[in-house]
């Protein structure tokens, strides 16, 4: 397949090495970090209004976290070597650090927090369910069915502490992804100390928007009323975070324009040609300015509940699309121009190959499948959150 090249490209730059799967990786980890930070709002900052989404946010984070390494595995091939990352740690490689960052976040933060939060329900279900489900719940109790008031209070305190540790961990997880790009000093499109910070804020934006959409959709599917106070609050946080994220990105842009180093003309040309649609139209206009304007509108104009819900739905969808476009423009955009600044190549996405569109779509659907299983196993809904367990007090979602 002939790849259209314009101007001069070095031979190893013509074909892109990082495909759409590497776009998915920061997108998915961003959703994880964002969803977790939304959950921590309720737990640590005691924002009671977002309580209905607390458990859903945790399960969303876990579903996406389980899928996060898969795009990397598929991209690299040799899945049998993936364990080596954990078995032969190497501190001097930024890529090899992924194993530690990932394992820490999965094992020490997310799984522990979910287990502690759901333990009361798990114990109750291990006594009320039948068959294989009973066995699963019994296994999850680790053989202890003590849900006394004091034991639950200890869980609550420990859970609070883990969330406290979890917030910097979520920042670390996605900041690390930004660092991977930001530290490539040979690539002026990536090399920026702002990159980890921009990645963290865009992660928060996408995660908050995704959980808001999932909450609205799942509540409607269950035939329940959407808690408007809850989505109002989430939308407010989404707006604030989005404004910070957009300001940081604009600061980065202004600095680049003013600095106008030797790469600037080449990158500027790329943004005006090859990245025009994905960066200017989709990411900035549709995916950033429009949702900020829509969310801002709900803050300054008194709208009906239905109108607000529709606006939140639309703004949420546009936000997720915009953040995906941002990941696309970072990963793909960073490989479209020559390091000689004299030429540009083209990314042609394959369809049914190991790194093609079909796999990418499959990887984006997979977390929702995992989430469905998790929701069936550990219902996050406030109305089904607590089953009575013998000798235990009623326990809320926090």
């Amino acid at each position, binding site marked *: 397949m002939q790849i259209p090249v314009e101007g001069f490209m070095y031979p190893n730059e013509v074909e892109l090495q990082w495909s759409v799967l590497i776009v998915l990786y920061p997108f998915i980890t961003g959703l994880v970090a964002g969803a977790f930070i939304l959950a921590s709002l309720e737990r640590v900052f005691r924002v009671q209004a977002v309580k209905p989404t607390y458990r859903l946010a945790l399960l969303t984070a876990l579903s996406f976290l389980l899928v996060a390494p898969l795009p990397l595995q598929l991209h690299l091939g040799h899945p049998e070597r993936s364990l080596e990352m954990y078995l*032969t740690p*190497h501190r001097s490689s930024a890529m090899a650090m992924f194993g530690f960052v990932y394992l820490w976040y999965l094992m020490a933060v997310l799984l522990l927090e979910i287990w502690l939060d759901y333990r009361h329900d798990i114990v109750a279900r291990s006594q009320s369910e039948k068959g294989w489900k009973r066995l699963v719940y019994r296994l999850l109790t*680790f053989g202890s069915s003590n849900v006394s008031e004091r034991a639950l209070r*200890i869980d609550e305190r420990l859970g609070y502490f883990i969330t406290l540790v979890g917030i910097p961990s979520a920042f670390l997880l996605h900041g690390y992804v930004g660092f991977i790009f930001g530290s490539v000093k040979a690539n002026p499109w990536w090399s920026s100390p702002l990159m980890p910070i921009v990645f963290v804020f865009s992660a928060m934006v996408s995660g908050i928007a995704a959980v808001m959409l999932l909450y609205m959709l799942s509540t409607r599917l269950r035939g329940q009323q959407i808690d408007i106070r809850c989505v109002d609050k989430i939308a407010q946080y989404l707006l604030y975070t989005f404004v910070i994220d957009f300001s940081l990105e604009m600061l980065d842009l202004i600095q680049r324009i003013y600095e106008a180093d030797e790469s600037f003309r080449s990158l500027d040309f790329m943004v005006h040609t090859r990245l025009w649609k994905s960066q200017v139209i989709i990411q900035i206009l549709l995916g950033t300015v429009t949702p900020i304007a829509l969310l801002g509108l709900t803050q300054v104009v008194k709208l009906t509940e239905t109108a607000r819900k529709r606006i939140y739905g639309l703004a949420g969808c546009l936000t997720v699309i915009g953040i995906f476009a941002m990941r696309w423009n970072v990963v793909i955009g960073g490989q479209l121009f020559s390091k000689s600044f004299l030429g540009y190549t083209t990314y042609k996405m394959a369809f049914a190959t190991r790194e093609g569109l079909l796999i990418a779509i499959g990887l984006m659907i997979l977390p929702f499948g995992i989430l469905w299983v998790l929701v069936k196993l550990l219902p996050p809904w406030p109305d089904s959150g607590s089953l009575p367990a013998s000798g235990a007090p009623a326990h809320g979602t926090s």
Partner: protein
Amino acid sequence: MNLFKDIEHLIRLAVVIVVLLLVFVVLRVAVVPHSFGEYGHYRGDAIQEVAARPISFAGHAVCEDCHTDVVDQKKLGKHVVVSCEACHGAQARHVEDPGSVKPAKLDTAILCARCHEANSAKPKGFPQVATADHSAGLACDTCHQPHRPKIETAAKNEAGGRK
């Protein structure tokens, strides 16, 4: 005692974590090669394994022992810095048995273009030509002597060559 009962589930969790850590340690001992990390972040035995592989390259000093006429030619041109096997390929087997193993005849139209095809990324002072315009597929050694490629001015004028 009561406190122990209320944190029993956490102790059980800690035991699970310790078991997982033990599995990790056992797996690491079983899977990581023993010589890993002996000299650096790689398998130490790999050095002996690589050393045990048959030698392919003879090295230019060995070539020069026999091909003194070529050495004299190279000394007169810029290719004096180019090692013999950079163009002729690995020749250790030829050194072992010069009678029966002969180096392959090279197609200079392809070989020379590897370094001298015009490319804006190459330093300006490096001799380079757009081969399609310069020689139109003709083998380079039709005009150039590969071991001393610069064509003397008189000969160049005669041949009407252009750079």
